[in-house]
């Protein structure tokens, strides 16, 4: 637990002083939304359904960047060696990296939601408050698999390709559930309409956060 807070605090302080990851994530999320606005027909690119879809595309791409950055920053300076030599357990390291990736993703998503409302002609109203927990669940789920997989793909050739190749198919259930639940929330439907999807998201999170927590020690090694 001490290791968790120490590593997380270090990551957050680093981010507060440089702002690199959050800026990169926000920029990427913005670009994804812009590309989608131009890719879709203006008549189509409005309303909750397309907006929710666009938001989740932004979430997946910014998440990929977030998870990669959290771990490459450590290996670039050989800092990972120090972390592994320290008595801190690897599960704590996983939890800290997961939390950092999650926080950065949520900041980027917050910006993406604002841009989504503007680009897709939605309203700033209470529906956004109901989308927030759905996005939080989606971001946590993505961070959980991406953190585990980034530790693996960081060791492979063409790691920029390998992370999405492994993470995206694995994330499909949460992606489907998240888009549906967000659409329901943005359309102002009652909670019962999104209930099944929220349940899938929760199940996905429970499964992959615990799997990552248990398996991380097998993938994070120095050589």
């Amino acid at each position, binding site marked *: 637990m001490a290791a968790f807070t120490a590593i997380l605090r270090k990551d957050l302080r680093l981010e507060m002083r440089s702002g690199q990851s959050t800026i990169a994530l926000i920029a990427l999320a913005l670009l994804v939304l812009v590309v989608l606005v131009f890719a879709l027909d203006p008549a189509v690119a409005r309303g909750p359904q397309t907006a929710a879809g666009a938001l989740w595309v932004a979430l997946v791409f910014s998440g990929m960047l977030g998870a990669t950055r959290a771990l490459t920053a450590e290996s670039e300076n050989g800092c990972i060696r120090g972390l592994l030599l320290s008595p801190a357990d690897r599960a704590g390291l996983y939890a800290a990296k997961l939390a950092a990736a999650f926080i950065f993703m949520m900041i980027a998503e917050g910006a993406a939601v604002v841009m989504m409302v503007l680009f897709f002609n939605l309203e700033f109203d209470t529906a956004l408050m109901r989308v927030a927990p759905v996005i939080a669940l989606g971001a946590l789920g993505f961070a959980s698999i991406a953190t585990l997989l980034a530790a693996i793909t960081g060791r492979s050739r063409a790691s920029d390709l390998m992370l999405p190749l492994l993470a995206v198919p694995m994330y499909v*259930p949460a992606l489907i559930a998240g888009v549906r639940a967000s659409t329901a929330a943005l359309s102002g439907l009652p909670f019962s309409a999104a209930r099944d999807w929220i349940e899938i998201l929760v199940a996905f999170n429970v*499964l992959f956060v615990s799997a990552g927590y248990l398996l991380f020690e097998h993938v994070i*090694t120095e050589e």
Partner: protein
Amino acid sequence: MARKLVTSLGVLSLILVITALYMVFEYVPTEADEGIVQRIFYFHVPCAWIAFMAFGLVAVAGIFYLWLGGQIWDDLGHAAAETGMLFCTLMLVSGSLWARPMWGTWWTWDSRLTSTFILWLLYGGYLMLRVMIEDSRQVARFAAVIGIVAALDVPVIILSVRLWRTIHPAVLVTRQGGHGLQDPRMVATLLVSLTAITVTFAWLFLVRFAELRMGTRLAALARGIALAEVRSGDI
């Protein structure tokens, strides 16, 4: 011993596949609703069963590798993933060939098709990672972890995709289990082709597994020789 087993399995699989082909094309009666196209089902279903079993095997091998260690578990998972991928591809292709005349389209985002396709992508990524990492011990550990995580994902994928398509139903209705095997000859044909495909899988799997084992032994020998050379050089 192992060699004999592989050879006899190969011969057995040849005989069984020929028998199954004969039964599919000559013996079994044509299904009333779907016509001649339905015959592809006798190969499609066994391929599906083999693909799922092989991917289960990958996960089990992964668990044993992380638990007990030992290169043999990694070779097992590796061979199972490659062979499973072959049958998963065959399942998708044969399903697509069937869907074109029956549904009027090569591909539709039906729940089973979608789940299978995602599974195919997952294990494609798994096999690609094996190529992309050089260190053999690292590969083994990473592959074990991904094999386990992918298997954990399968029930969630199936659940979510099913729900996704029920809420937005496909234009074309899936025949849920209604393949109508009323004729006992159809059941017999399915059983024979199921056995044939299973034996073929076992044969291909063992060939690949034996090859991987040999590679492992060869690598160990090469290490031993290199070590001996270093030692004799010192003296």
